[in-house]
């Protein structure tokens, strides 16, 4: 396991090993400053501020966290609710900027967190493909070129020109998955192995995920289901109170994690 000391001295100096990693996190810290009470109106905010009654509470979501994921590795992330797993995903997908430390992500990131982001029920499947893909930063020209692959994969050929209001939840998830994985990303972020459609389709999705991995995609899977981590991951990471508690081969980490659970 890499310790913070190895990486800390000069984070900006590129190292050979670091250059090849898909994700490289160095001394990541995310600190939220939350008001102690919920303030919903601007008037209230200004009045409290003027009276000097605005108090903040520091909340550490992540603390001195180091992590490296090389291409082609399938890493599982375990931890209790509120341990910082979602924050970790947000930091990697650049939704959140860490308050300290450095994140380097090489190549395109595909988040399988929000399937069918921005889907609108009054629009057709086809229109939604373009909309959804645009949210991932794909231009409509390139989507047009690969549209048939998306439709093929989703198995929605007959329904693609219907408003998705008429789709079942399984069909929606299939379309969402097909769009989110239309291009092989360098990094795939998964929040729980998705229950997409029927068993046959789920296997097809998993096959695609593993296919990506064998072509060099690094995968980060956050899950509460130990089985899915044990099934898919080559390495596991345990996060506890925003810090890295353990890292190593999947079995070992899962073993320690379940023991840790038994203790408390």
């Amino acid at each position, binding site marked *: 396991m890499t310790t913070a000391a190895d990486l800390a001295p000069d*984070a*900006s100096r590129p190292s050979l090993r670091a250059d090849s990693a898909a994700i490289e996190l160095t001394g990541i810290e995310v600190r*939220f400053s*939350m008001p102690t009470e919920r*303030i*919903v*109106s*601007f*008037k*209230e*905010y200004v009045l409290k501020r003027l009276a000097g009654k605005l108090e903040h509470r520091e909340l550490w979501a992540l603390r001195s966290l180091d992590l490296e994921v090389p291409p082609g590795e399938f890493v599982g992330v375990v931890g209790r609710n509120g341990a910082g797993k979602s924050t970790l995903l*947000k930091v990697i*997908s*650049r*939704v*959140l*900027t*860490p308050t300290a*430390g*450095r*994140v*380097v*992500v*090489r*190549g*395109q*990131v595909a*988040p399988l*967190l*929000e399937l069918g*982001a*921005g889907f*609108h029920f*009054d*629009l057709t499947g086809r*229109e939604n493909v*373009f*909309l959804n893909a*645009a*949210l*991932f*930063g*794909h*231009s*409509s020209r390139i989507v047009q070129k690969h549209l048939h*692959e998306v439709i*093929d*994969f989703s198995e929605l050929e007959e329904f693609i020109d219907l408003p998705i209001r008429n789709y079942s939840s399984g069909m929606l998830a299939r379309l969402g998955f097909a769009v989110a*994985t*239309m*291009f*092989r*990303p*360098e990094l795939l972020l998964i929040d729980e192995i998705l229950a997409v459609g029927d068993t046959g389709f789920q296997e*097809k999705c998993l*096959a*695609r995920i593993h*296919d*990506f991995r064998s*072509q060099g995609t690094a995968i980060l899977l956050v899950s509460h289901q130990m089985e899915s981590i044990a099934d898919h991951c080559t390495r596991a990471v345990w996060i506890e109170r925003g810090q890295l508690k353990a890292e190593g081969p999947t079995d070992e980490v899962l073993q320690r994690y379940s023991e840790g659970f038994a203790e408390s």
Partner: protein
Amino acid sequence: MTSSLRPSPIQPAARQQVYDSSRRPHPAVEELQELIRFWDLVVQWSRRNIKLRYKRSILGVVWTLLEPLMLMTILTVVFSNVFRFDDLGYPFPLYILSGLLLFDFFNRSTLQIVEETVASLGLATRIYVPRSAFAVATAITYLVNWAVALIPLAAIMLVLRQPLSWAILTIPFGMLLTGLFALGVGLLVATLGAFFHDVKLTYQVLLTGWFYATPIIYPPGIIPSNLQKYFLLNPLFHLVTLVRDPVILGQVAPLENWLAALGFSLGALVVGWWVFTTQRSVFDYRS
């Protein structure tokens, strides 16, 4: 399962893309770079908004054309009978309508920018998208609606036998400046409005005041002359002049109005953009 047998396509430009949190440019610059990279999203999102507007009801398009006409009829009847504006030198209905279209655009687009920004938070806190994309798309959507509403305006010009001059070709530029101004104001209000629910309510009250403070339903001449100089401080006064003079007078608005409008629009845009991008943590911590 043929898809797993051949290598999956990689988006060509995406391969070399590296995100390094320690080498990020200033947020205001980064957001602009990302907005350009995601320009297709802006286009798609605007098209979506326009499509939805016209899809929801068969009356969609008709309504866009009818609404300003009906509003104008009511206001013209009320104002030309209650207040007698004779000898203005231009047809008062056209004066009202061209001003109303501008204010209607400003009113709706800024409020909708606040709405869209808040609505997109659920999405933008899970996957990375430049958040300004939704605001820009909203401004574009309402600019298109405004352009459609120019059709009934042109029809009325024909009915009233108002001469058409080449000056009307400057109207799109005035609209564009209004769009930039609305975007700036919208971003500013959205930043605060995402956090506090009373900001939008306060802004709505302000908008009502702003409407009456701008010569839209009355000619500027009815205001005492010692107060008229305050119109010059009102960005909407200059903007409305740009799009109204070509219609009612058949001439391009005076240069000083163009310069003032340009200054106000760019100023609002820079301030709005700056606040929206540098205060983005406001959005992050709401999730």
